[in-house]
Each structure stands twice: as C-alpha cells, then as structure tokens.
C-alpha cells in the first residue's frame, strides 16, 4: 500500500518552558512496495514520525493516510523496534504468534504461520527459547518474524539494527533485503546511519534537525538485488556523500545541543 503523510505536525507539551515541536509540516509519500529510508540526525523526530504512522503517537496537526487495496484481515502496519520489545515471558514461538492472536487467527493456523516465519528467519530450533537466552541478532530476527507473521501492508522499522554490533548489523541488513525481495511489502525504515539507508533503500528521505522537516528526497541509483560489493560502487559512495553534505551541519548542531 501507499503511505501518505500530509502536513504532519507533532508538539509535545513540556512541563516547564515552551512546548517541544518534534515534527513540523512533514509531507511525504511512500509508494507501494517501496523501501523508503527515513534518515536524520538524533533528535529529529524520526521515531515520532514512525509512531504517528503506526497510530501510536497522536498527531497534533495534519494526518496519515494509506491508499490502495488491502487483503481482508491484513493489518495496515506492523512494527519492528530498536529495543526489540520482545515479551520476556513468551517463548520465541509465542512472541511471533502475538500479532496473530490479536488478529483472531485460530490456534492451528497461527502455529503454521509462525513456523513458516521462524523458518524463514533462520530461527528453526529456537522456538521454545526465551528471549533472554538469545543473542541480540537472534532477538531482532524474532522481532522481524513477529512483524512479518501478520503480513502487514506496510512494515515500519525503527532503527532495528542500531543495538547490534557492526558485523551482525551487516548480516542482518542483507537478510532483511532477502526477505523483502520475497515479501515485497512497503517498508519505512528509520535510521541515523547513512550507509545503512543507502545500501537498503530505493529512496532516502532526509529529515532536518528538530523540528523535523523533510530536507530532501534522494533516490538511490543502485540495482537490486543489492550485494555487499556495492558498498564500494561509485553510485553508492556518491549518494552517501551527497546525503552527508545535506545533514552535516544539522548533525554538528545536534552534537552541540546534545539532543536525543
């Protein structure tokens, strides 16, 4: 499905001092089956934007709309969280079944869909483990399996790999791309990592520092499937460099301010 964000604004009332404007007049659209990266320095309201799209953060102004056909029973969005957000009291299998339970999927079908998703994410044999028994990379695999299990029209990913070490992150990025080539949902992928955004996305949306506004929309001229070798390709380096020049001053200002 296509995601349309129209003139979205979000202001948080502050207990003391003036209210904080996290997002101001954000307008964007993600095409159906597009892999759209949303990039910005820390404190630019990227997570707020994703939260507003998921219906987890009420907008102060403007709105979010979904356009296009949806299969019956298909949820609009499913989310993958930076902190994984797995339920510690649920096994891997039960975590993956969570969204299906809420959709009212019956026991047997739930188990079958969870199994399929777990196998796809390389979690076979880990079904009965608890999250604390898994490594960070495996935990986020469960997080992704949980989101894909409900077959969402749009997959929302909020810095999904930023809690992982660099090697694991690279592997997980490739794995996610592999899964996406097959599933072909629309993905909104929030990150502060330029290389990550360029390597994975069809298009990178650059946000400004708080209050977050759309600075630029940068298409990534790299073919698919993406491979690790492309990390050195001129098109990759040029695109990454172009984005870096766009946000460099923003990032420097954020550094001094120490925003989150």
């Amino acid at each position, binding site marked *: 499905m296509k995601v349309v964000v129209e003139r979205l604004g979000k202001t948080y009332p502050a207990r003391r001092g003036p209210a904080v404007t996290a997002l101001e007049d954000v307008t964007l659209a993600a095409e159906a089956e597009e892999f759209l990266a949303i990039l910005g320095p820390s404190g630019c309201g990227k997570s707020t934007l994703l939260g507003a799209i*998921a219906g987890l953060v009420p907008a102060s102004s403007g709105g979010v709309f979904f356009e296009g056909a949806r299969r019956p029973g298909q949820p609009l969005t*499913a989310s993958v969280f930076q902190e994984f957000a797995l339920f510690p009291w649920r096994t891997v299998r039960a975590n993956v079944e969570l969204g299906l339970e809420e959709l009212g999927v019956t026991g047997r079908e739930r188990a079958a869909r969870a199994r399929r998703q777990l196998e796809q994410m390389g979690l076979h044999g880990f079904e009965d483990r608890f999250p604390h028994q898994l490594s960070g990379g495996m935990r986020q695999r469960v997080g992704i399996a949980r989101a894909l299990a409900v077959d969402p029209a749009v997959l929302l990913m909020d810095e999904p790999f930023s809690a992982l070490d660099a090697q694991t992150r690279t592997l997980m990025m490739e794995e996610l791309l592999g899964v996406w080539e097959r599933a072909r949902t629309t993905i909104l992928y929030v990150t502060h990592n330029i290389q990550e955004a360029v390597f994975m996305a069809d298009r990178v949306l650059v946000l400004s520092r708080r209050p977050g506004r759309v600075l630029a929309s940068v298409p990534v001229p790299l073919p698919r499937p993406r491979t690790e070798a492309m990390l050195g390709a001129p098109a990759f380096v040029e695109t990454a460099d172009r984005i870096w020049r766009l946000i460099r001053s923003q990032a420097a200002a954020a550094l001094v301010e120490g925003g989150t």
Partner: protein
Amino acid sequence: MTTPGVPAPRGAAPRVPVEDRTRFLARAEHRALRVAALVGVLVLWELFCRAGWVPALFLPSPLGVLREARDMLASGELLVHLAASLKRLVLGFALGSAAGVAVGIAVGVFSTAEAVGTPLIAATFPIPKIALLPLLILWLGIGEPSKIAVIALGVFFPLALNTYAGARQADPVLIRAAVAFGAGRWSVIRKVIVPSTLPMVFAGLKLGAGTALLLLVAAEMIAVESGIGFLVLNAANLMATTKLMVGIVLLSALGVLSHWGLTAMERLVIPWREE
C-alpha cells in the same frame, strides 16, 4: 621459559605480573559454616541445659522439645492444632492475596480505581491489623470467620501494594509493542501488565506469609480450642514450657516451609527470569 607470541624479556627489563585485584570482593557461600552455625547453637543449647545452669521450666533442652513433639504427634494432639491452624492460614492467605492482586492490578491500570483506591489504602495500610481483631469479632462473630478475616486483611495490603507497584513498573516499550500489534485494553492487561507484576506479586506473597503467621497466633489466642496459638498460650498458662517450645518450633517450621514453597513456586511460574 618462553611463551609463543610473547617476546622473551631482554636484558634486565623489569617485568611485573598482573595480579587479580578483585579477590577480596568475592563472596564465598560457606555451605559447611551455614550448617555448622545452626547445629552448633543447638548443641551448645543442649549442653547448657544438661549442665543444669537453668531449670528446664525456663529453658527446655532441644532434645526435650523433640521428645515432647514426638509424644504429641503420637497422641494426635499436634496434628489437631496443626490442622486447625493450617486451615485458617490457607483460607486467609488465599482470600487476602487474591483480593490484593485484583485490587493492585485495578489500581495500577485504571486511573479511576487509582484515584479511589490509593487514598483509602494509604489510610488503612498503617493500622496494625491486630487492632482490628476485636472489631472483626464484633462483626463476624467469635468463630472462624473473624480469624480468617484478620489474616486475609494482613495479607491483602502487602499484595495490593506490591502488585500496584509491579503494574506501574510494566515496561512502556512492551505496552507500546502490544498496542502496535493490535492489543486493546484487556489484551494489554492480560499479556503485559499481569506477567510484569509476577515478580512483585511473589515478593508480596513472601511478605504476606510472615504477616499471616503473626496474625494467626494473635487470633488463636482469643476464644479457640485448637491451633498453634492456642497451644502456645495454653502451655504457658500451665507452665508447660516444653510444650510451648514445640509450638514455637512449629511456627518457625511453618515460616521456613512457606518461604521455600513460595520460592519453588516462583521458579515454576516465572521461568523467563534471568539468573
């Protein structure tokens, strides 16, 4: 003496080995000492009594208490008291903890329940529950209900307060995640809040078990014919100190056993807890 990869010291270059500086921070378990301390005190106590330094009326010897317990077990007296006490304990504990958990979750989840509940709990929590016993007897009669009620009341508060705290501590990230996957209010309560409270609930149950024992003995000192509290009071009136000590040892055993039982149950119910 060379190690592969490590160049041999050349000439008189000084070499200082790194020592483990954290050694003094280690805490050994001292298993033997734990047992020895308990057994040692008992042995000293026994010797003290045998030496005849105190009359048995004031301090019966451990073996004497054991013998008395055996006789009371044989005559069936011990079981009568134990059964009467256990019945009151189990009923009061079950009622009080069930009500405490229910109220704690309601107050932790619903803002209206919190507004109504917290001032009421704050006002009634500090009352020593023994002080309510005469009132409960007035309301419920002198029989079993007033005794069960006072135990239930004593257990209610630690559970309500702990469950409330546990519900408030539920991870907001998990609540958000549940909502993101379509959970409504009841699903969030059932799938996030309730499991989040479990560690605090068990802490409350352990606190409540101690309170229950205290109130049991207090309640059994008023107008009863059986129970460990009655046993202790009655033995004291008859100057039967050995019998009195049997009652006290029984109370200690009940306390230790309930703690062990609850700890074992906690491991069973919360298998996800990290070591």
